[in-house]
């Protein structure tokens, strides 16, 4: 009995090991590459790009192209949705299992620097060659924490030339044109009424900002905010040009179905609308606020961030790869494939942009954009604004009460960050 048992155990172990060895290992083993060349490097790259807008495919092509030129550098490309990426990176940080490189959005810099998980890039790159506003969106405490890849991610006014000839230039024109166009089964304007990202441009137009000059104290209870909320309320109830309830998908569907003349949406949606509307698609700035300014939508983009602790051959490879991706050629490629504006200053003059009316309009909007704050406190602002904005739009709170509530919520949240 005992010998049989022992034999069984031994047999199982052998079988298990044989199976494990036979199963082709999912990741390319560095050993194989190391035998061919000395300094072999494997870079784990986490990207927020998904397949929906072609972003992930683009990153994959960049990675493949680089490996062709430098066969000793291989990549493990993992894509995660924005929220997931942030959560997973922080969790990985706790476990000491961080990836080697991040391709992500600017507001991740806040929490990541708080936790001390990424390194500043001022010493590693010549940052002058990048667009100022792109850099500004990744700067904290005087240091830059990310290398910009694309610039923008901003909202703009997109319109259907089949329904409205040209875009309104001011808010008065917007309301007038909108009212003409709003019938029982058509709307003048649609936008995502649930996210404060769509509120912020108007706030800028009324002269307001979410932070005081120190960049950390919330200033949400201001006249500008009240006026903004009042404006959004007006275009829904007083002089209705927008639907009664509309989230991102709703607005998107209405515009694609031709049931909305104008939509406020971001540069990521350009490709999809271009496909559906073709030449009928027009791009313009969000209309200027009468008695105020041009609205300032938040601009940011995507950035490379390097986790702390990377060094040696790996760091060299990463720096080189970043140079490769942000080189003029690849930036032009990105513009063509993803309809995004480049972060490389020199690439802004590329005829690809200046000759494309859509991209030109997008660039025109970006000029009056404001860099999105990347401090951790910003999240508190977003979370404070969101329910209050929705309450005003649901007509359950006055703009004054909402603004006051936003401020309290943000302050409580910031106090909690400690």
């Amino acid at each position: 009995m005992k010998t049989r048992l022992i034999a069984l155990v031994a047999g199982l172990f052998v079988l298990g090991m044989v199976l494990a060895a036979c199963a082709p290992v999912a990741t390319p083993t560095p050993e194989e590459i190391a035998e061919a060349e000395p300094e072999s490097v494997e870079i784990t790259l986490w990207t927020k790009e998904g397949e929906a807008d072609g972003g992930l495919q683009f990153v994959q092509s960049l990675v493949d192209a680089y490996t062709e030129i430098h066969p000793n550098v291989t990549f493990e490309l993992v894509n995660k949705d924005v929220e997931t990426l942030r959560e997973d990176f922080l969790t990985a940080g706790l476990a000491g299992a961080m990836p080697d490189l991040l391709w992500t959005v600017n507001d991740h810099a806040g929490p990541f620097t708080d936790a001390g998980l990424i390194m500043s890039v001022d010493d590693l790159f010549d940052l002058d060659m990048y667009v100022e506003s792109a850099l500004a969106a990744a700067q904290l405490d005087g240091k830059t924490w990310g290398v910009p890849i694309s610039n923008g991610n901003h909202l703009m006014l997109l319109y259907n030339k089949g329904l409205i000839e040209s875009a309104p230039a001011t808010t008065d024109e917007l309301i007038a044109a909108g009212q003409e166009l709003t019938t029982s089964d058509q709307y003048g304007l649609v936008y995502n009424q649930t996210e404060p990202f769509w509120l912020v441009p108007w706030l800028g137009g009324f002269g307001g900002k979410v932070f005081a000059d120190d960049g950390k104290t919330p200033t949400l209870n201001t006249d500008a905010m009240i006026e903004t909320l009042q404006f959004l309320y007006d275009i829904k109830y007083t002089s209705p040009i927008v639907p009664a309830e509309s989230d991102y998908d709703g607005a998107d569907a209405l515009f694609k179905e031709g049931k909305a003349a104008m939509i406020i949406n971001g540069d990521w949606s350009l490709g999809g609308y271009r496909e559906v509307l073709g030449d009928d698609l027009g791009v313009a700035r969000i209309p200027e606020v009468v008695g105020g300014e041009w609205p300032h939508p938040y601009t940011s983009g995507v950035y490379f961030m390097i986790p702390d602790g990377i060094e040696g051959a790996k760091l060299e490879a990463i720096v080189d790869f970043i140079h490769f991706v942000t080189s003029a050629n690849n930036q032009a490629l990105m513009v063509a494939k993803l309809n995004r504006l480049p972060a490389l200053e020199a690439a802004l003059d590329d005829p690809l942009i200046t000759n494309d009316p859509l991209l030109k309009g997008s660039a025109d909007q970006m000029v009056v954009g404001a860099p999105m704050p990347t401090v951790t406190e910003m999240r508190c602002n977003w979370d404070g604004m969101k329910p209050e904005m929705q309450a005003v739009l649901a007509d359950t709170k006055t703009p004054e009460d909402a603004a006051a509530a936003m401020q309290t919520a943000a302050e409580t949240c910031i106090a909690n960050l400690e």
Partner: protein
Amino acid sequence: MEFLTWEVVLNALGEVGSTVLYIFAGTVLLELFVYFLWTPLRALSRRVDGWLDPLGDRLRHLVATVLMAVVVVFAVRAIAVGQTPSPWAPYWPLTVVVFGLGLFISPNALNIFQSELRLAYMLLAPAVVGLLLLVVFPLLWELNVSLTNLNPRHFQSPDYIGLTNYLEVFTKPVLKQVTFFPVLLRTILWTAVNLLFHVTGGMILALLLNRKMRFKGLYRALLVFPWAIPQPIAVLAWRGEFHFEYGFVNIMLQRLGLPAIQWMTDPTWNFIAMSITNIWLGIPFMMVILLGGLQSIAGDYYEAAELDGASAWQQFWGVTVPLLRPVLTPAVILGTVWTFTNFNVPFFINQNELETSDTLVTALFRSAFQYFNLGDAAAFAFVIFGLLLVFSVLYIRVTGGLKGAYE
């Protein structure tokens, strides 16, 4: 990108196969370990018991308990929180020694190492090891974290702040404005409403189906759909239905001449939307359980009751309900716990992240992952856990639910 080639198929099989075999082999090793160590350990415990007998049982229990407490405290403190390893960690072999000491000093050691129990412990060993790793360790880690201020600002080496987090659970707002007790009340309301409809709806359907009829199998199959569908898909489908413009519910309302409802922005209607979805999801489970219970009630009871002149209503309350009690009790406990801790429905239906629609668990999740306030979240989680534990114990006591049906 890979496609389903033979290589991929074999890859997955190999991975899974080797995993299972490793687990199996590990289990067998563990079993052998227990098997061969048993007798020597038993002899040892007899010896030690002989030596320590003069000390008396009381003292020995005391010492053993103290030693075990030390082990637990050590385990909690030695687990690293944040990125820096705990300074206590290298001393873990000591813990094993202390644990052994505590085990043998206790008078219970004799009881544990009886030879008849060897097989029992062998059978239990794999599950125990697994649970230790995957349940006990995480709980201890969370306990540890709940005593610190771990968040992005205190990440590398968080500070120990004692029970502050627990106090703050009750005093500070959970996320922005709403504090603990409103969320608790809302969660209780959520659970009560859902459970009421689950049991009622399930009972009605079970009663309807509890007869010989045509298409019974077909009905049962279709009615079980909500349970069989993977929850995330079901919840997202329902969320679509509550959409203002395009959702089925509003379209029907408008066709009936009623105004469309703002399901996503109005707090009350959002809560109702959540409840409708969860009720739809939960009725099949109750129906299935109650149907099984009904089917096992012998017809004689009803016949006897009829002969005694009982009406249908009296039959229901006098015969059906008491006989269903042993089936209902675990179902209600499980249903309550699962509804209380249900995450998918409140989280995804509450598309606009209305704070007024949060239940305890969704608030916990947001606090933990959106702000990564792990210290607060851990304390919060333990409070929830404590609540549920108290509820279950009370429920079992009050309803005497674990008694048999015939008493």
